[in-house]
Every structure is written in structure tokens, then in C-alpha cells.
């Protein structure tokens, strides 16, 4: 019984940082409305002003639960620019707080790695066996369908999104 409690505590401790780092900072990309629930017809709880600083306290589908200095509510994911390291990177979040960068709203993550550059691409030599290897993993239409089915995915009818402002409401 005691051992059980110990593991439970350990589990909670392990997940605590992830929960803590979920309180991500960000700012509003545009003027928008805050709502009581993550639906476009939910009751309005306040306004979001472009550039306004906010704290992200939750996420549900296309909606973010945010807190500004004046109000709290749900707003569309794309109305917000997230301002700290990606969620899930608990250590990075902790480091930001420790270095005092978290509150500046100008936090940028660094990868600290070197990517492929143009010179390397230009000098690359054709590798036939690598292409063959890549092609060996190829899946058929049916295999793709089966894989989707296993994950509970179902194809949805949906038209291509038109360019912004091309017909329909914005």
C-alpha cells in the first residue's frame, strides 16, 4: 500500500513540471473576443487586443484558454502568438523562468544545431542505395487505409480552403 502511494507521488512529481510549463506566455496576434467556452457562439467574457500579453492556461482543439490582465476566456488558436518554448519542453520553460526571460515576451528558442546548408546540398552526391532503401518502406493505398482504420481515423469530406478573402466570410 505504501509502495503504491510512493509511486503515485512520484508520478505526480514527474508530471508536475509539464503542468507548470503549460502556463505558457504569449500575445494576441489580432483583436478578438474572449468567450466563456471554446465555441464561436459561447458567451463573451471580454476582449482581446492586438499585441496584448496573455497567459495560456489551456487548450482544446482549435481553442486556447487564455488569461489577460483584464479578462479570461477562450479564443481561437490562430489569434495567439505563443511566446515561449514549445509546450512539453519543461526544462526549457524552467530555464526561461530562472534566467528571467519568461516575462519579457521576447523569448526565442534556440536549436543550437547546424542544419544542412546550401553548400552541402550543392555538393551532395547521388546515392542510389539510399533511394532504394527509402523506397523499400513504401506503403500501398490499401496499407494506408488499414493503418488509418487501426488508429480510428475516418476520411472526412472537406473542400480545399480558399485563399483569405476569396469568397465566404472571413
Amino acid at each position, binding site marked *: 500500500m505504501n509502495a503504491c502511494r510512493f509511486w503515485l507521488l512520484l508520478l505526480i512529481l514527474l508530471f508536475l513540471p509539464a503542468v507548470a510549463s503549460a502556463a505558457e506566455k504569449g500575445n494576441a496576434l489580432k483583436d478578438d473576443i474572449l468567450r466563456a467556452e471554446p465555441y464561436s457562439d459561447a458567451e463573451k467574457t471580454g476582449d482581446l487586443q492586438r499585441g496584448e500579453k496573455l497567459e495560456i492556461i489551456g487548450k482544446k482543439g*482549435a481553442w486556447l484558454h487564455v488569461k489577460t490582465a483584464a479578462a479570461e476566456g477562450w479564443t481561437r488558436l490562430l489569434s495567439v502568438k*505563443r511566446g515561449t518554448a514549445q509546450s512539453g519542453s519543461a526544462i526549457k520553460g524552467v530555464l526561461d523562468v530562472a534566467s528571467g526571460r519568461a516575462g519579457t515576451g521576447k523569448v526565442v528558442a534556440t536549436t543550437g544545431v547546424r542544419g544542412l546548408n546550401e553548400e552541402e546540398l550543392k555538393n551532395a552526391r*547521388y*546515392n542510389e542505395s539510399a533511394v532504394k532503401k527509402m523506397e523499400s518502406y513504401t*506503403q500501398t493505398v490499401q496499407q*494506408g487505409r488499414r*493503418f*488509418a482504420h487501426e488508429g480510428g481515423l*475516418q476520411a472526412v469530406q472537406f473542400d480545399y*480552403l480558399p485563399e483569405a478573402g476569396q469568397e465566404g466570410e472571413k
Partner: protein
Amino acid sequence: MRMVYLILAFALSSFLPSAHAADFGKVLGDVIKSTTAGGENKENAPDQAGRQSKKAFNLQAPSRTEEIQLGREITGNLLGAAPLVNDAALQKYVNQVGRWVANQSERSDLPWHFGVIETEGINAFAAPGGYVIVTKGLYRRLENEAQLAGVLAHEIAHVVRSHHLKIMQKTQLLDLGADFLGKQLGKNEQLIQKIIGSGAEICARSLDKSAEFEADRMGVTLTVRSGYEPYGLPEVLQAIGQTAKDDDGVSLLFKTHPHPDDRLRQLDGAIGSRLDGIKDGKTLAKRFYRLKSR
């Protein structure tokens, strides 16, 4: 002051747009040299008659086989720059997700191939004929299958709309050069090499901004059609957008693409409330294949 602008304008015009032209200009030079070296005279220049002759490789209207052949060559060069990650389970998983997403496109007939390459830089590439490559650095940033689907869907869109092919075609050299070079050499391999330039440099070329925005819109659409949570791609863009512009891990990506913030803004305008009806999209975070190494 005006002079500075003038110089700047000149510098820009001589560097940016002509970068492609210069490559192709060189190729054109080579092509002409190879034709004239064989003792041919001017009558062999590409004229109408020449175009109607049997073509070895037609880039203005490539066949499915030609498109695949071209993409295969580009991919082989790219794999020469960075090998596939040695993890069969990862490669298979990426092909499973990619295949399902590609099934929802107009080009489900293509034998789509997907791969993750061994570089920590953040990027993804597409080549004609259905070859799609994601870097390990980008894969590492993903949190669930919907995000992977979103990234692959963006690249699939480039292939579906022939964005890279169009860039090659735009230069005109392709039709021109392909026709009579084909006659001269009769070897598609050599011809393709002329078209794509040296190594995988074609992967470092920028597409039009509008092509990237289109691929983003189509990417979100294909993600939705596949039954995933629609915001996989925007979430990845949000994460990448936080990386400093001069960071070497994203420098090539940022150089060849509009800034993620611009892409998100465009997507927001296109999406509006159109996705409000999509309720049962899945993220499949549990099934998402996690990299073995850190």
C-alpha cells in the same frame, strides 16, 4: 540617400531573382556547347520542327514516369547530403501516415515515398513524383501524429500542385534544352542532371510565397480530410516561429520560406470559422512514434 537605394536595389536584383536564371544560364551555355561541339550548325537550334521531333524528356508536360524519374534523382542527391535515419520502424511509420494523407489528395495514384533524414536542422522537402523528406530535427519537435500529418500534408501539396516542377519549367530552358539535348545525348539521366543542377541545390531554392501559403492551406485541408485534428500544421509553425531567425538550425528553412508568423496569419485569414464544424479530429499522440535517441 537615393544612391544607396539604387545600389541596394541593384544588389538585390542581381542576387535574388537571378539566382535561378544564373543556374539555368550556365546550363544553357553547356547545352549550346555540347550541341555545337559535335559539328552541328545553327539549324539544330531549338525551333518548332525540333520540338515536334521525338522527345526524350518533356518537362513542359512530363509523363507520370518522367515526373517520378526527376523526383527520384533529386531525392538521391538529397540523400547523398544526409542519409536516412537508421530506424526502420520510424521510416515505416512516416510512410504509413504519409500514405494515408496522400490518399486524400488528387494524386493518390503516385507511389508516395516518405523518409526522415539524419540532420538536426529543421526542414522538410518535396520532390516531383511523390518523394517527401523530413529532417530529424523537425521530427523531434513534433508531439503527435496530427502534427506529423500536417507537415507531410504541406509537402504533399507541393507535389500535387507541381510547385517545384513549375519553377523548373518557368525558365523555359527545360523545354528548349530538353528537346535538343535529348536528341544529342539520348540519355535521360544526363538530361535530368542538367535540369536539376548540381547535387541537391534545387532543395535550397525558394518557391513563390504564394506557393507556400497555398501548400499551407492545402496541408490543413488534407489533415482534416484524413480525420486528424486540423491544427497539426499551425501548431508546428507556432513552435518553429519561436526559433531565432539567425539560428543555424532553421536558417535554410527561414531563407526559403515566409516567416512562420506570416504563414500563420495567412492561414488564420483562410480558415476563419471554416473549421468550426470539424469536431472529431484525432491527434493520436499515443500512437506517435517517438525517436529512440535524444
